[in-house]
């Protein structure tokens, strides 16, 4: 696997002005995505995980103030016009949203829409495009693909629509697929189908994947590297194994300890309180009001991502105290 960097996000900041003050949705996020890798971004609602990817694609409303840098294969994307960006969207960077209806047009058949996506960036005939559409539907595992070509989006179930969106995303062999909560609205058995389709899409196109979700279980099976977001910040980055087995940020550890899982049955270790409002953020570490390790330093100084091991960063002044610790010892 080559280690060419495809997507480089540097110091990305997104703010929304509102009546009650400025919402700091994303605060100085930096990450890179290498060719072919699967990067997970995990966080709760309001952590800024979706806003980050919307900013990368230039899909935020005009009222948003975006700064920092987003480079795709070395070229800056921030500040470009919508017309210039549409060249990238679809062809190089494809996206799959939580709501498949956001990306499907209700008045055209599924087959037409996939063929359309093929035609936009490829110089092929109509017949070729239709053939490719059928092929793509089969790849994402839709049963009776030939009949489904002539179906309208409303005739398909949620899981099937999402697989059609994945087929459209694959249409131009993109370099990056950004999937934003692709399975959140779906039942588990359907989620398994969609994740399988996403996996197949990745294998077939060799695209890198950015998988955004709140579900640590989904990340565990489908990502290689992971960014944990909290209150608009990256609070921990590393390989999935690093983060799941040796978390070094209390929030990550708390999250893992509070997760009901089917393979163990111990009492859950909850994190007290709730994530902060992104308005009028407290100074210092955003997790400090909920953190059991909190000291005066945490309230005064916001920790940066400390380098805690090779390829593993954690935003906690006291990350060393988490070595070999268990959630139930930290969160008593």
């Amino acid at each position, binding site marked *: 696997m080559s280690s060419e960097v495809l997507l480089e996000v540097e110091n990305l900041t997104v703010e929304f*002005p*509102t*009546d009650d003050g400025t919402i700091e949705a994303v605060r100085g996020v930096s990450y890179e995505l290498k060719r072919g890798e699967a990067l997970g971004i995990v966080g709760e609602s309001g952590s800024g995980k979706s806003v980050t990817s919307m900013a990368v694609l230039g899909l935020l409303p005009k009222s948003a103030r975006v700064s920092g840098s987003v480079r795709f294969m070395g070229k800056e994307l921030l500040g470009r016009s919508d017309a210039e960006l549409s060249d990238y969207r679809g062809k190089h960077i494809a996206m799959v949203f939580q709501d498949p209806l956001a990306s499907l047009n209700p008045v055209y058949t599924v087959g037409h829409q996939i063929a359309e996506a093929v035609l936009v960036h490829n110089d092929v005939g109509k017949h070729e495009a239709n053939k490719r559409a059928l092929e793509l539907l089969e790849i994402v595992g839709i049963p009776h693909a030939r009949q489904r070509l002539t179906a309208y989006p409303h005739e398909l179930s949620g899981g099937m629509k999402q697989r059609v969106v994945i087929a459209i995303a694959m249409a131009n062999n993109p370099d990056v697929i950004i999937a934003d909560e692709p399975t959140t609205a779906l039942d588990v058995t359907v989620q398994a189908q969609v994740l399988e389709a996403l996996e197949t899409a990745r294998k077939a196109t060799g695209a890198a994947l950015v998988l955004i979700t709140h579900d640590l279980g989904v990340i565990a099976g489908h990502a290689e590297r992971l960014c944990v977001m909290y209150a608009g910040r990256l609070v921990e980055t590393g390989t999935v194994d690093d983060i799941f087995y040796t978390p070094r940020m209390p929030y990550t550890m708390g999250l893992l300890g509070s997760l009901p899982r089917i393979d163990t049955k111990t009492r859950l270790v*909850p994190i*007290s*309180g*709730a994530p902060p409002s992104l*308005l009028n953020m407290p100074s210092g570490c955003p997790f400090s*009001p909920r953190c059991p390790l909190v000291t005066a330093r945490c309230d005064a100084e916001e920790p940066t991502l400390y380098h805690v091991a090779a390829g593993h960063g954690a935003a906690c002044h006291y990350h060393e105290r988490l070595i070999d610790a268990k959630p139930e010892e930290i969160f008593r």
Partner: protein
Amino acid sequence: MTEQLQITPEKAVSSKEFTVQERSQFQIVLRRFMRHRLAMGSLFVFILIVLFAYAGAALWKYSYTDITPDNSMPPSWEHPFGTDNLGRDGLAKVMRGLQQSLKIALSVAVIGIVMGTAWGAIAGYFGRHVDNLLMRFADMVIILPGIAVAASLASISQGAWWSIALIIGGLASANVSRLIRGLVLSLREQDFIEAARALGASDSRIILRHLVPNALGPTIVSATILIAVGILAETALSFLGFGVQPPDSSLGLLIQQAQSAVNTRPWLFYFPGFFIILIALTINFIGDGLRDAFDPKQTRVRR
């Protein structure tokens, strides 16, 4: 049940928990409304009109019944709105007309809203046959030629202002009932109504404590629109001679009385007409502002 029971380690709720200022629904609506410039301006103008009608009439040297020696005078310092052929002061008559018209319009709004809300809420909440019956009746009222019906009913009561308000309000409530019914139908499916039912709440409690308060926003908006409807309907009725009867006055009656003099004494026609248009416009803008302020889908982002 012990008092010292420590159930979850929910940390002592710190002040950090609410970083957004405590604000009631009312405050939020008020804030949004105040930001709507046109609506605020209209509200200001409307208040001026009301003051003009009531305070003005109390202060002005002529009463609307006074007959002055100056007849058929164009506007002057002595008679800013001119006089009619009997020498009655135009300004005093317009102020009296405004009083009567506003009184009728506000009563129309109150009657229309109270009747319409009860009508719509009962139809929407109970559904099925009750709904069918009440809504078919509403359809019938709506397809009636309103002015004709109002005119024939008003002629029976001989133009007392309250009877006119009652008739217009009653007819308008059919429209309100449809709006409220729609709201109630969607509210009825909400979880909190089911929650109230699971707690054993009675129908009247659910309607009064849950449905009506939650339908309040759109109700207030339609109340403002009803004021404009009231003004216009009263004008139409009085113009046709079925509304307020002389020697009393109203804006519609003033126009009717002036119609024969459009060419000779146009001031008698223009001043009441100007107020009718002004009231209808300001009320519509206020309604717009309220609609935006109550709309929860409105973005909180400043543009």
